[in-house]
């Protein structure tokens, strides 16, 4: 559905995005994670045909983003929500949405149905005639999402959809994105909220001018940091440590009364580890899996890249 091949954007001598290559499948929620200035917005703008690429290729549903005729076709099938809502404050929520729906050649009936459905879903139907300028940030963000969806696009591009929102409003927006995920919409999401990326995305790309990592949240964690098993004992002695080391090739650390063991597959390795400890006379209080968070993965990846 979305393909980028060595996609690059330079502003003068500054390279904003460098050689991105990735694929987003139909119905997938793909997230771009990266610090400020990593090139997330520039990438989304290139994919939405808002700015021209410097080199490389980008294809949306088989259409070339660098071709003028194709770019109009792309803009018909995508919905885009920029970081700033960019609504017309003097106009009502209904009029804002109606204006955009008309640009997509929706009939009056289609516009009415679509606007009512979206505003009801987002809990704004009762306020449909109020000027958007009087709305709270969260409400404006909801209207901006509705605007991106008013023509029922196949692909949705969301640039920091929950930035600057209070936790409650951010949750509402995230829940709505989850609803869209259930509808099998293809969603491309820019965020620097790790929790949000983990909750919403099927796959994540970590970006810092160029693509540092890409994969499912699970793959990223395992590939970069692996997982650990923690065995809490009444007492740790050399015999137990030796038995565990004999059993596993992974690193074994002793922290107070705990053994922290690197494992590649916890489900298959843990029973053997427990048995080794037990056989060596260890009295186990509990066994716990220790998985790295996406934050660990993100920070490690970005820091490795920082000179």
């Amino acid at each position: 559905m979305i393909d980028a091949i060595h996609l690059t954007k330079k502003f003068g001598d500054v390279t904003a995005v460098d050689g991105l290559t990735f694929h987003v499948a139909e119905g997938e929620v793909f997230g771009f994670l990266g610090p400020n200035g990593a090139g997330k917005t520039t990438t989304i703008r290139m994919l939405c045909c808002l700015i021209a690429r410097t080199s490389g290729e980008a294809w949306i549903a088989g259409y070339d983003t660098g071709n003028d005729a194709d770019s109009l076709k792309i803009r018909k099938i995508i919905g885009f929500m920029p970081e700033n809502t960019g609504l017309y404050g003097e106009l009502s929520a209904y009029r804002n949405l109606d204006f955009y729906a008309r640009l997509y050649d929706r009939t009056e009936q289609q516009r009415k149905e679509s606007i009512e459905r979206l505003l009801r879903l987002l809990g704004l139907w009762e306020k449909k005639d109020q000027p958007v300028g009087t709305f709270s940030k969260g409400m404006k963000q909801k209207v901006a999402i509705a605007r991106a969806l008013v023509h029922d696009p196949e692909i949705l591009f969301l640039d920091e959809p929950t930035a600057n929102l209070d936790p409650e409003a951010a949750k509402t927006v995230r829940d709505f994105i989850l609803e869209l995920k259930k509808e099998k919409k293809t969603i491309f999401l820019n965020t620097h909220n790790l929790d949000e990326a983990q909750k919403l995305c099927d796959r994540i790309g970590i970006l810092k001018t160029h693509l540092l990592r890409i994969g499912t949240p699970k793959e990223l964690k395992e590939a970069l940091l692996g997982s650990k098993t923690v065995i809490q004992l009444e007492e740790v002695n050399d015999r137990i440590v030796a038995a565990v080391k004999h059993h596993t090739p992974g690193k074994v650390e002793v922290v107070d009364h705990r053994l922290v063991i690197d494992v590649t597959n916890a489900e298959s390795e843990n029973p053997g580890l427990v048995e080794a400890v037990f056989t060596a006379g260890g009295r186990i209080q509990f066994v716990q899996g220790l998985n790295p968070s996406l934050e660990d993965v993100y920070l490690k990846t970005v820091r490795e890249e920082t000179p």
Partner: protein
Amino acid sequence: MRLSKAWIIASKDLSIFRKKKSIFYTMIIFPLFVSIGLPLLIYFIAGRSAGTPDIVSGLPLIINAFAFFFLIGAATLPTTIASYTIVGEKQEQSLEPLLATPITDREILLGKSIGALLPPLLAIWIGGVIFMGMIDAITSGLLGYLYFPNAVMAVIMLLLVPLAAVTSVEVSVIVSAKVNDVRTAQQLGSMIVIPFAMIYVLGEINVFPLTVPYLIILAVILLVVDRVLFSLAVSTFRRDEILTKWK
């Protein structure tokens, strides 16, 4: 280029202007002054003249000079709206989602131009009708005939006013790309009045008389200027420029 798309943009802008009182007042104050204030001045002059032949014979010159004010209005009034419509969108950051819709840059520019042209044109044309009616009512007794409608006013209203308004809008588009503040854009855009004021002065000293042939020459010049400015405006109003270079 699809006019229907441009009209969607224009009608949205017109809806916003209707809610902006400052724009509404700007649109009516100038035409009101020219269409009612200036005829009242003529009424005062005519009353004082009491049939003095010199003054009566000079009335057409004064009326023509006053009619030229509509042209100056056409050059200045659209800057108010055009600056708002572009810098305003820039401030509200509403251009980015608009550019992501299936509409071309030229259609957006045309829509914005139509939206910025219609209110001032309407205000000036209505003002022109009031002006002509009042002048005829005041001067027909003195002149012995109805001064309006005439060819000079027809050329001014139907040819020069739309062309000057287009000039004004295009200058505003170019200026708007460089500034972030509506007032600054309006002030810079309103500099367009200077060449028109100069033409007015040249008319007063008879170097460029405000007669039909000269006014048609002015229309041709404006047409060329508008064409050049339009090319400049189109090159300024490109999505890459708007999102990455507009400050």
